[in-house]
């Protein structure tokens, strides 16, 4: 494949050209209630060609196998280049020549596990969930895939990889009249079958969470001190702040660059937010991004101040910043855009009890159900929450929704825990129509003041 792709690229020596191709094999098992709704395996392949000239791109995506035809199409589309494009004003940041081949690691190869064993495992988990009286229905999903990727550009870089991805998601819906509550667990990453084994305890926990929430109280809306558990603090870092550090959002917008100026203070000096593509096994493990740039660990916020951004080659050139290895596409059917990898609030030095004591009275939010962000505004729903009085966890609460402005909320972080965790899953990140990109979110417990919570 390497020689084939490079021979095609070499026919156009005057252009900057990239070719990206991948082949994927999948297996999936999904129970919905008692029914095994979908089970089986499939294959797919897809590729793209990108040409960059004078600050403008020509992009062709395809899923037949005729790479040469699509390179010709991408070159042909250059004729539409605008008359105003100027040499030098726009470009691609110089990237080190890379020739690399790598494979993700695993203990148990999921592709060697018979489909019947995967069905048996998920059937067992699903039966545990449905065995609880108040559980109305379930959704228990397993997925694994082997992805072989090939990348080459006209600068001579070449990367091929084989990545095995395995994961599951378990959903329990409890119902009492019109009151429907949910318990949820997911884990996924570049692991083998070992990541989905031994999840009986998690099945029991999500059922307990869902059933307990049926009896939980609603809460008075207002502004509260809040302790976020590692999962929801990780989601906050990703959704509320992480997307704002993706440079394709601001690299051609001076007003946005001013708002997100490097060195600007976002929080207190113990706040550090990191994006790290180099963590093997995690869902955001990206040793080389989709432009052949090596992945890095970078501080987005360091000691409270905006330290760096996530870049593609194009945004790095425009901003005069370092490459970060964050140009990713969901599949080659989409162009790479700036995306996160493994994004987390780094741990501090306080334990949960100290943070609770610091908070005094407030709300302890655990886990995450759903939410959305739009630019600097966010809203999330806690999976469940607890009223806290005098630092003691009290009654269970439901339908606790947190909203706010990310700039104000980051400034209101007053305590950071010492219990960092990372969370992957089958869901993934969505941006620009590319939904479900594997990432992880992470964080320790964090204590935040003045968070608006909705309620009754």
């Amino acid at each position, binding site marked *: 494949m390497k020689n084939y792709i490079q021979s095609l690229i070499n026919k156009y020596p005057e252009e900057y050209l990239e070719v990206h191709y991948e082949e994927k094999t999948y297996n999936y098992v999904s129970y919905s209630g008692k029914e095994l709704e979908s089970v089986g395996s499939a*294959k797919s392949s897809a590729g793209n060609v990108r040409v960059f000239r004078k600050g403008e791109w020509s992009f062709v995506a395809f899923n037949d196998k005729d790479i040469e035809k699509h390179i010709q199409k991408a070159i042909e589309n250059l004729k539409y280049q605008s008359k105003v494009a100027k040499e030098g004003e726009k470009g691609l940041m110089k990237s080190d020549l890379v020739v690399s081949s790598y494979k993700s690691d695993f203990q148990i190869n999921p592709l060697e596990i018979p489909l*019947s064993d995967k069905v048996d495992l998920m059937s067992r988990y699903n039966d545990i969930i449905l065995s609880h009286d108040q559980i109305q229905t379930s959704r228990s999903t397993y997925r694994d895939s082997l992805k072989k990727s090939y990348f080459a550009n006209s600068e001579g870089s070449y990367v091929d990889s084989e990545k095995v991805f395995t994961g599951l998601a378990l959903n329990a819906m409890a119902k009492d009249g019109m009151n429907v509550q949910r318990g949820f667990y997911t884990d996924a990453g570049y692991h083998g079958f070992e990541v989905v084994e031994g999840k009986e305890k998690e099945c029991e926990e999500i059922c307990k969470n869902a059933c307990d929430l049926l009896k939980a109280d609603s809460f008075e809306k207002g502004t509260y001190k809040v302790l976020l558990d590692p999962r929801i603090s990780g989601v906050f870092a990703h959704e509320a702040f992480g997307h704002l550090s993706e440079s394709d959002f601001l690299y051609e917008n001076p007003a946005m660059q001013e708002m997100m100026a490097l060195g600007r203070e976002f929080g207190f000096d113990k706040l550090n937010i990191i994006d790290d593509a180099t963590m093997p096994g995690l869902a955001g493990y990206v040793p080389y991004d989709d432009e052949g740039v090596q992945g890095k660990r970078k501080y987005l916020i360091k000691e409270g101040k905006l330290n760096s951004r996530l870049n593609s080659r194009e945004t790095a050139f425009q901003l005069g910043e370092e490459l970060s290895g964050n140009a990713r596409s969901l599949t080659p059917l989409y*162009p790479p855009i700036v995306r996160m990898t493994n994004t987390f609030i780094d741990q501090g030095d306080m334990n949960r009890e100290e943070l609770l004591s610091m908070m005094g009275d407030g709300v302890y939010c655990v886990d995450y159900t759903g939410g959305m962000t739009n630019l600097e505004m966010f809203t999330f729903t806690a999976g469940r929450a607890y009223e806290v009085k005098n630092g003691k966890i009290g009654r269970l609460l439901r339908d606790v929704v947190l909203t706010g402005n990310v700039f104000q909320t980051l400034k209101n972080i007053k305590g950071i825990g010492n219990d960092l965790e990372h969370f992957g899953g089958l869901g993934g990140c969505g941006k620009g129509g590319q939904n479900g990109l594997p990432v992880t979110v992470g964080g320790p417990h964090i204590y935040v003041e003045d968070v608006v919570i909705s309620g009754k």
Partner: protein
Amino acid sequence: MDIFDFITNRAKNTELIMSETESHSVVFESDFFKSVESSQSQGIGLRTIQNDKIGFSFSNDFNDQEIVDRALESAQFGEKACFSFAGDKKVPDLPLYHREVMDTSIESMIGFGERAIEAIKDYNPEIKVDVGIEKETYQITLKTSNGFDHSYRKSFYSVGVNGLLAKNDQLLSISKGKTRYHPFDDIDSLTEPIIEQFKLSTRSANIKTGNYKILFTPRAFRSLLSILLPSLSGKAVQKGISPLDHRLGELIVSKSFTLTDSGTLKDGIASAPFDGEGTLSRENHLFTDGVLKTFIYDLQTGGLMKEKSTGSGSRGYSSLPSPSFRNLRVEPGNESYESLLSRTLIIRTALSSTVVAHNQELKFHKKLVKIFWN
């Protein structure tokens, strides 16, 4: 040998969906032309019923003969089938394909984008404008071993315009999009609503927490509807999690509310002669004068519930059919916009974007307003 013939030689009870898509788009980013993008994709999805169990697999290779082995393996474990694949039937011819879409030149699409940017920059040069214009065609073919063998083609012309203004740690993003079966050239229909909202944003008002009568624009009402819709899926009823289960024929909402889901709506973007499993598209009356009339079903969900499919089995080639809405339509009433304007709060778009507060005149409220209702 044709792939369908190969499949039916190996497995007797089958359904094959084939999809071919071609699209071309131009992208403007922060006021400037950015890229021309072309895309070609294809795929096949094979369902089979063996020993009363459903098997499924998919591929993007039209000649992938191993798809049969994968589907047959899947059928060893699959769900018990409560339906049969579609048989031969007469299929209506809907005007969903217009050759002018693919005949639209890239140059004219670029010109459209440049004019849209100019219109917004003329109003306020500080606004950064992104534009995406796409022309797309696709063809769906569905064949079954029971004799169904039909295709249809669709064409789309889509434009999205977004304006972004950044000031004082606040960001205001206003977008407008339009998709039609045929090309269109009226930039004003996209740029004028964006400019209007930016104009409104210069006059701000505050809202106190409280109870209000609310007027939702059609776009914002979509978000409100999205809370109700999952309860109308036959799948939610079958799983026992729809709060509307056992309430057919009851008055559920206001008597002024009539909601229809149509698979044949003229110029409806989701219209098609048949759904993803060969059931003819139709109009489904979900609510009539506030009374719940029907849920939506695909073949399997309907079979499980001893109901007929409502032609709502939507899918792509890589997925199984599932009850999905097509073109939702709230029937208009007879009260004028001006009369409705006497309400105190207008929600223009959903939670994530702008809210227009009205106190005798239209003003603008800072973005995030939480609406709570039962």
